[in-house]
């Protein structure tokens, strides 16, 4: 996802990082006897994070600032590409070679580390350092909590899923932004008649389809339905709201709501976003992070004020709270249980003084176009060039009655894989709603 042009600043920071990397390597190669040389490798904490601008530069700058301020407790960082990282971290943890700081998405993945006894319990530490905890959005702690205990520090940004629309296309079609799900469905034939896909959907990536299920189920049955699944209640998918939701999805597919050939559209190259900003699609349900990439790739689409956004509208007669949202309540840093006491100390020091310090917070807002999981950033958000969108994301996140984590992250990897598999089949009519429910009930609590 290297879509942003390399700015001079990024380039400079990259060169600086190369230098720092070389210095760290030199430090590491001094062997066990090298403890006297000022730094000392024993309390150097390793830290892996994701590549891809603008996040990579921001993560790196934060780590470098921390290293500068703490010459005796350094971080040694390495960046990995998203999918490669997911594999690498799992293998490393399984082999007992995990980095001190384990970056992740919380939820079911974190739980699998907890079950294996691979990550530190941070409940006590957060109790002693209440200031660190109080600085962050309370909702961000949900996916960091397993069995009532906190195992990770929320970091980076909050990313709710947003219903985007192309204002120009709406104007040309003489359509109004939908106030309800029924409005959305009424718009389907209108846009189809003009040869425009009503909704852009990257059906090749299975998780993109999942966002429709998440919002529809919440709006129809309320947040409690998925909560029951998450809690592992037997046959929780059998709730009538689920069948209603699945039937609505298949009706949408049948009516061509997602446009021609949606199942071969790939999210990896942002083809779904291109459909929206080129005016080939009218609406798109997607993560908050796509705002930044559409701004980069879409010419003057975003800066010209053609992008509209809203929270997913209510379904008539539905039980869900219209303020509810779904997405990533944050990203997470856990501490490896296999790390030495000194390394853990360094990591905790990074939590208190490094993670989301004033500079990093500002960078996420101004360079990243995202809302960090920190309270009280309203004034910085308001001064940003993307103030309107950022305020919307901030308000949506703070005012949401329930901010549910994306299903595939919340559930265990085993259940998530079955879920994604069945969602792909649902959109292809390869499975009936009833069969879907049966398949999914089998992996509850697994």
């Amino acid at each position: 996802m290297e879509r942003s042009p390399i700015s001079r600043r990024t380039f400079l920071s990259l060169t600086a990082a190369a230098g720092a990397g070389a210095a760290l390597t030199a430090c590491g190669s001094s062997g066990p006897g090298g403890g006297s040389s000022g730094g000392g490798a024993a309390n150097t904490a390793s830290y892996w994070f994701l590549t891809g601008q603008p996040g990579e530069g921001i993560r790196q700058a934060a780590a470098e600032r921390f290293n500068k301020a703490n010459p005796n407790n350094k971080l040694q960082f390495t960046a990995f590409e998203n999918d490669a990282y997911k594999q690498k971290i799992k293998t490393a943890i399984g082999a007992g070679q995990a980095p001190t700081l384990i970056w992740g998405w919380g939820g079911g993945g974190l739980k699998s580390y907890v079950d294996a006894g691979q990550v530190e319990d941070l409940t006590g530490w957060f109790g002693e350092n209440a200031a660190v905890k109080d600085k962050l959005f309370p909702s961000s702690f949900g996916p960091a909590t397993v069995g009532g205990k906190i195992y990770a520090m929320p970091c980076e940004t909050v990313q709710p899923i947003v219903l985007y629309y192309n204002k120009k296309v709406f104007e040309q079609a003489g359509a109004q932004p939908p106030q309800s799900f029924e409005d959305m469905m009424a718009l389907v034939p209108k846009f189809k008649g003009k040869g425009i896909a009503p909704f852009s959907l990257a059906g090749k990536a299975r998780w993109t389809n999942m966002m429709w299920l998440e919002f529809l189920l919440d709006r129809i049955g309320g947040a409690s339905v998925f909560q029951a699944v998450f809690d592992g209640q037997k046959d929780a998918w059998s709730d009538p709201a689920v069948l209603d939701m699945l039937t609505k999805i298949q009706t949408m597919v049948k009516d061509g709501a997602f446009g021609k050939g949606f199942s071969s559209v790939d999210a990896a190259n942002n083809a779904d976003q291109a459909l929206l900003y080129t005016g080939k699609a009218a609406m798109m349900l997607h993560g908050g992070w796509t705002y930044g990439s559409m701004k980069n790739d879409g010419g003057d689409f975003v800066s010209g004020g053609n992008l509209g956004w809203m929270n997913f509208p209510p379904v008539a007669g539905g039980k869900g709270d219209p303020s509810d949202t779904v997405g990533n309540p944050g990203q997470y840093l856990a501490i490896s249980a296999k790390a030495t006491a000194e390394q853990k100390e360094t990591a905790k020091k990074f939590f208190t003084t490094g993670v989301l310090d004033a500079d990093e917070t500002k960078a996420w807002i101004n360079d990243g176009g995202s809302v960090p999981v920190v309270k009280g950033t309203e004034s910085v958000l308001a001064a940003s060039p993307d103030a309107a969108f950022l305020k919307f994301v901030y308000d949506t996140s703070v005012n949401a009655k329930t901010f549910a984590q994306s299903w595939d992250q919340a559930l265990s990897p085993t259940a998530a894989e079955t879920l994604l598999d069945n969602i792909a089949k649902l959109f292809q009519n390869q499975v009936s709603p009833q069969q879907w429910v049966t398949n999914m009930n089998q992996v509850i609590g697994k």
Partner: protein
Amino acid sequence: MTVLAPPPTRVPERSTSAGGRSKSVSWMVLPALAVFVAFGIVPLLGALGLSFTQWDGIGQINPAGLDSWKAVLTEPGLLHALWVTFLVMALSWVFQTPMSLLIGVFLAAHKRYRGLLAVLYFIPLLLSSTAIAITYSALLNPNFGLGAGLGVELLNQDWLGQGNLALGVLIFVVSWQFIPFHSLIYQGGVRQIPTSLYEAAEIDGAGKIRTFFSITLPQLKYTIITSSTLMVVGSLTFFDLIFVLTAGGPGDSTQVLALEMYQLGFKANLMGPASAIAVILVLVGLGLALLLRRLGGGSEADSQLEGV
């Protein structure tokens, strides 16, 4: 890339001096054997062992008896994945073999322009599967791809979004990638056929087509078996191109066994069932390779140059 059996003159020599000579050189097999054991046999035994356990790749490995095997064998997805795997195998064989045979025969003639063509044909084999898959999915994109770009409605299908079409595209891309390789094998095979056979045929008044079916094809019997074995066993473990091109989709229309194994093991954290599938893959592969050798008939020591 010599795929032929040793010339017949050596056969009696080897059988008569089996004692002394083969003993003195038998140590030469050791390096290859060591590598094969370390990277072939040991991981295979590891997978076999893991298939009787429950492991999520992170925590403890717990013995689980036959649980994984039961789970895998009762799962309807396995039969479907097996069916898709065999479909891919059979269709790509049916498509690739005649094509590469003809191209191979064509290229075997010593003509300069054919040498140039041989180089051109060879290009797809030089590209990585991932690059090929990314390129094709961009070309076949219904909104921004070739069909939409040229405005040709016939090309503008939902190529990767409909089950049968996606399977067809997959076979096409696999063939496009591997026909050059098999052509090369056939080219080598054809060049080994003694020209005296063709001269004799010419004297007897056989035409080009008759020569092809009566001399070239029978003489290539072992080459065909070699090429088919590579094709069939290769398509069993075929993964990268499918993973990038369709990821098993749409739905599960192109979900082959190797992909199923990957998703179970590395996405769903179910190493036990994934190992069971790996063992099934090995068994099926071995079975097919043996079957193909049987089809060849006779032992490997048989002469290939019958009638010379």
